[in-house]
């Protein structure tokens, strides 16, 4: 099995912050096949396109996955109406996740609703990683307990200083690198943040992988709508976020 489509039960549902929902879905086959950095697409009743959402948790033992998403528009609003016990229609697991290779230590950088895909990485790296997260304000902070529980050094930044340290994740990243240079940096978040993280990684000569977003049609590589400018064999090539990504080696991406 590469990916499959089905309706699966939501066995737990909570809200993490205003308009941020946290679903645990029971789908053992998918959980078994899934890897950190991969995503699912969720069907929203009445909307022609599925909504992509990253895996925030993969529990192979219990056969569940965890989806944390924010209501942004009408489709996510519709999905947020689902309740514990309801069935959720997903295609999963999709895309290429993070490539852990033989990286021993990592810094994870998550910004806003880009934090969820960092959680499975923290679970793997545990004490061997630093999880830096950035949010606009205290009210938007999510997933910090999860990072702590994984044993990761957990650094929280808010733009307005209402929780954790004040400032952007890039400042914290620089500090953490100075303390201990990691083998790799993994990042997900808004484009300006990603750009900032990649610049710093390059400066220090640290390989970095980034999870990108693009509007999607099929979600599986067939429709070619989710193009991302990359370099392949020295030539410009429009890769596809849903199939070649969402995680890319930043050196391959043309910003």
């Amino acid at each position, binding site marked *: 099995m590469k990916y499959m*489509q089905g309706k699966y039960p939501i066995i737990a549902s909570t809200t993490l912050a205003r308009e941020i929902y946290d679903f645990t879905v029971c789908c053992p086959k998918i959980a078994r096949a899934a890897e950190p950095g991969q995503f699912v697409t969720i069907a929203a009743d009445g*909307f022609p*396109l599925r909504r992509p959402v990253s895996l925030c948790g993969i529990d192979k033992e219990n056969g569940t996955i965890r989806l944390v998403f924010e209501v942004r528009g009408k489709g996510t609003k519709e999905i947020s109406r689902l309740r514990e016990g309801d069935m959720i229609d997903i295609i999963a697991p999709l895309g290429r996740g993070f490539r852990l290779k033989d990286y021993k230590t990592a810094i994870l950088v998550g910004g806003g609703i880009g934090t969820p895909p960092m959680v499975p990485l923290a679970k793997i790296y545990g004490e061997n990683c630093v999880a830096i997260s950035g949010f606009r304000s205290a009210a938007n902070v999510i997933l910090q307990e999860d990072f702590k529980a994984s044993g990761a050094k957990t650094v929280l930044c808010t733009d307005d200083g209402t929780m954790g340290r004040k400032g952007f994740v890039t400042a914290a990243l620089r500090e953490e690198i100075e303390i201990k240079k990691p083998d790799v940096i993994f990042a997900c978040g808004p484009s300006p943040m990603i750009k900032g993280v990649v610049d710093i990684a390059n400066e220090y000569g640290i390989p970095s992988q980034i999870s990108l977003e693009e509007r999607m049609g099929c979600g599986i590589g*067939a429709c*070619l*709508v989710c*193009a991302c400018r990359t370099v392949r064999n020295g030539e*410009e090539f429009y890769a596809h976020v849903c199939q070649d990504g969402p995680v890319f080696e930043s050196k391959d991406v043309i910003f």
Partner: protein
Amino acid sequence: MADMRVNIAGVEFKNPVITASGTFGYGREYEHFFPLSKLGGISTKGTTAEKRNGNLAPRIAETPSGILNSVGLQNPGIDKFIKVELPNLKSKDTVIIANIAGFSIEEYAKICEKLDGTNVDMIEINISCPNVKHGGAAFGTSCQSAAEVTKAVRASTKKPIIIKLSPNVTDITEIARAVEAEGADAVSLINTLLGMRIDINSRRPILKNNVGGLSGAAVFPVALRMVWQTANAVKIPVIGMGGISTWEDGIEMMLAGASAIQVGAALFKNPFAAVEIIDGMNDYLDRKGIKSVNEIVKKVQPW
């Protein structure tokens, strides 16, 4: 079990349901959901003479019951298609239709010549892509240029030729008649309707290409009308598409005059849409005691 076979220009399809060009790649991705042999046929991603990257993203936007796309014909070029994709596709036990596009009449002809030597079953000539600056749709919006393309491809291959028509015209039957006169074996319609969406916060079009092609359920009534008009205007078979999402839509489209149908955007929400449509149409025929799907083609009774 009704007889679902249809025959278009001498090519036999095991059923009338074809996946639409550009929504099904070269078949590799949907194979993870179901065996491609279930399909009547596959119309492959629009292929050009040289490889193309297409337009910048975003290339898709959602609209009420529809989607806009502006891929702009990203593809690896006809040589790679023939070398890598076609052999794989031809092993799948379904009809393979090579969908092609060009930026000049010579390019159309050149691609067809290359395909003539292959074992592809049919060629679908896209003269209606709204997402590329030069060529594409321009060929499909005048009778003269549509006829010229048809004439050129007709001269360059013996393969059955389907001309894919644009809905962005005043009278689609004129264009259909023009390409019929130049030897098209069939016409397929509709390609996408040109549309647009704007982000009211950034004040930018959602698509980087500013405009894109509308498809999906929203366009179904327009597609159905055009298929009906065209089926009444030409003698060659009409392949109907545009917004087909359910087996009921498939039946409607064939009643309107389509000898076969294509399914595109519906696959994005439901990857099994095409196979469910095949099953649903078959059940309908059985329930109605209709022996062959051919018996419903063009059987709408206008008032």
